[in-house]
């Protein structure tokens, strides 16, 4: 936690600049961690839509990435979970139609890796 401000240093009128919560890493809340198996992913975007913490980044790709069944998925694809913010709720794993996300305990995290 950074040094707290004095009253003289405060913003006028209780007005905060945008998006400062990016400085608060909620990943520390996790008890369970999602492990995403990209080779089984169809990039359907369901996990991305549902994630309450915006912890699944996406990118646009024309050349595409390999996924389930060896197919190439183009357009918008997901990337690895942003563990700085993921709270480990398990929604992504529960809702994934191909079951390519599993939840493991944080303590076992060393053994897990993003399998490609």
């Amino acid at each position, binding site marked *: 936690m950074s040094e707290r401000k004095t009253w003289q240093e405060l913003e006028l009128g*209780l007005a*905060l*600049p*945008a*998006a*400062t*919560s*990016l*400085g*608060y*890493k*909620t990943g520390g*809340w996790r008890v369970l961690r999602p492990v995403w198996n990209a080779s089984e992913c169809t990039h*359907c*975007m*369901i996990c*991305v*839509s*549902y*994630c*309450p*913490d*915006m*912890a*699944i*980044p*996406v990118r*646009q790709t024309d050349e595409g990435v390999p996924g389930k069944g060896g197919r190439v998925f183009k*357009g*918008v694809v*997901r990337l690895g979970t*942003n563990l*700085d*913010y993921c*709270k*480990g*709720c*398990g*929604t992504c*794993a*529960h*809702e994934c139609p191909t079951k390519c996300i599993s*939840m493991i305990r944080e303590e076992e995290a060393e053994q897990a890796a993003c399998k490609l």
Partner: protein
Amino acid sequence: MPTLQEIALKTSGADARIVSGHRMCSGCGIGSLIKTVLAASDKPVIVISATGCLEVVTTIYPFTAWNTPWMHVTFENAASVASGVEAAYKALKRRGRIDGDVNILAVGGDGGTYDIGFQALSGALERGHKFMYLVYDNEGYMNTGNQRSGATPFGASTTTVPAGKVSFGKPQWRKNLVEIVAAHRIPYVGQAAVHNTLDLYKKAQKGFNADGPTVLAVLQPCTTNWSFDSALTMQYSKLAVETNFWPLYEIENGVVHINTKPSNRKPIEEFLKGQTRFRHLFKPGNEHVIVEMQKMIDDEWVRLLKLEESGIQF
């Protein structure tokens, strides 16, 4: 037609109007709900929050998860504050002091909307301000630990109307907010649920683009206070729709249109089981509550179908 891919780009990128680092409970339905609604606006959005879960978890000084102009005043006045913002926008634009278009979004929980914020909402709708009112309905005052609201369903146990030896929980059904706001003759009101992202997004688009005040009521299962595993929020949202507990429908220019009609609606027990707030209903002696609940849901559904069929305009 929007796609989940387009929506994903909007909700995840640097321009996303709400970002990570907020203090929502793990698995909270509001996160998905609010990011989807915000993404549906093709103009910058000014957000006015009532006191409640969303406001508290997104703005604990000095952290804010909002990447769009946002303000909060008190509990009951999201709609009246929004009225003032809208009036200011009109005046300043007319006087040439600002340019560009914005959408104005007032957001409240069910407590801040069905109960304490009801008057302000009604007044704002009657005056015809151009804004959208979003209510994230978790069926109680959840930020303060599950107290009963006008949106709490029949038979639910809350801390202020708990189930006990001589009580089965809330003895009243809930208000029908959608019909109440439709009676204000507003151009659009939609009822959506957090799991159906595309339906929610399309309804939010309609709400933002209508020429007048609009309301979007979205069911948001609450993992902490309905009490179920944090991974099951979307599952409960689906069950709510599949049991006709929470029909997906809209009232556009006064005419009812039901979006989803389950061919074989699931029995209400499917929705109730696994939620601690309804656990008491499965104890002996409380069977009649579930029977009554099922009847209410079925009667309401038939009534809704008739409303749609009649083409009657609110």
